[in-house]
């Protein structure tokens, strides 16, 4: 019995090592400013700065940076248009923000200084390292927040495009009996699982990448992590695309009239 408890404790300590929760680097009143929240604010400031500088120097004949931004935005817009059709104009700003924020968050986590520059704190008699900057999507708060926003706007657009009656009929109907009622309830439950699916997928991939890099560094810190870094860059793009595409598809499905 004691051995079993020891194994569980050992596993928990390993999990704590890998699945590091966001740590507070300071407090504003009662509000804890965690390293991931601080990084989120930095990413927001960085993206806002880019948006400001691009919009300030916009011209009909674009420079290199404007051309790059235009191409990127147009690519996402066309992708949205292909799937959502006329609703693209409404969906696009949200999807583009997801893309920019998640991509910037994922890529920034691979930059030097992330999870490596910080302070040592002594809590409960143990000395722990608290980095100032931490990969945003390696914090479940952040991916859950994105999933909540995604789900909320998906349902908001569904009500806006279908009307409240048609929206509710997607799950409940007066004609529903037996299996149909059960399917309706399942559909409703599946809406909540979207939050878990979106948030844990992103969190899991980024966290797993972080763990993999950490492990590779612990074996041989000079060359070994390099292919994993390249893979993580790929994962950053893929996970961004997955989140964006899933949100877009959910929006499209929920905003379309259901045919029973």
């Amino acid at each position: 019995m004691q051995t079993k408890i020891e194994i569980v404790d050992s596993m928990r300590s390993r999990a704590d090592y890998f699945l590091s929760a966001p740590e507070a680097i300071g407090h504003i009143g009662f509000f804890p400013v965690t390293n991931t929240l601080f990084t989120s604010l930095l990413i927001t400031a960085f993206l806002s700065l880019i948006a400001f500088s691009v919009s300030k120097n916009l011209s009909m004949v674009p420079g290199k940076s404007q051309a790059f931004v235009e191409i990127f935005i147009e690519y996402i817009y066309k992708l949205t248009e292909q799937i959502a059709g006329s609703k693209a104009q409404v969906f696009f700003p949200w999807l583009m923000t997801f893309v920019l924020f998640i991509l910037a968050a994922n890529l920034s986590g691979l930059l030097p200084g992330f999870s490596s520059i910080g302070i040592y704190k002594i809590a409960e008699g143990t000395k722990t390292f608290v980095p100032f900057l931490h990969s945003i999507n390696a914090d479940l708060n952040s991916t859950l927040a994105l999933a909540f926003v995604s789900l909320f706007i998906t349902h908001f657009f569904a009500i806006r495009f279908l009307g409240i009656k048609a929206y509710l009929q997607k799950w409940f109907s007066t004609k529903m009996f037996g299996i149909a009622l059960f399917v309706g309830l399942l559909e409703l439950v599946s809406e909540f699982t979207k939050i878990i699916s979106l948030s844990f997928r992103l969190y899991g991939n980024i966290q797993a990448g972080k763990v993999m890099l950490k492990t590779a560094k612990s074996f041989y810190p000079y060359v070994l992590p390099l292919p994993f870094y390249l893979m993580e860059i790929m994962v950053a793009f893929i996970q961004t695309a997955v989140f964006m595409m899933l949100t877009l598809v959910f929006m499209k499905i929920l905003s379309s009239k259901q045919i029973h």
Partner: protein
Amino acid sequence: MEQIFSNFGVKPILLSAQIVNFLILFLILKKLLYKQILKIKKKKKKNIEENLRNADKIKQQLKNAEQAYILKITEANIKAQKIVATASAEAIEIIAKAHQQAQYEVDLMIKKSKENLMYEQDKAKQVMHKEYANLVILGIEMITSEVLQLGDHKKIIETRLRELNNQNLN
């Protein structure tokens, strides 16, 4: 469930902060970036469409101009051919008239020359007759001067002159 979320460090206050942060980013990007970029894109698209329409219009105008040019050239060719044909006919007529005029003038000159020649011939004949008569008279005078009287001479001369005149008239 609460334990799981607690293990992952999920706290409602941090979750709310992340949501607010994302919404702020959304509003900033929407106002500063997407609206502006999409506006510029729309403007560019409009410009391209307008330019394409203009290009089509210009192409049509060029086609019309080419057709008009071909039409004008054809008309000019027909006119030129007509003018050349008229000029050729007129030239032939003028040449024919000139020929006629030349022929007439030549004929006239020949006629005048003939008349002059006849006149000169008559004149020469008269002079020759006179000279001949004088010679005859002189000869006769020389032969008959001693036999015939003055009155006889005159009669003979006049007779001979009349005969000569008659001969000439014949």
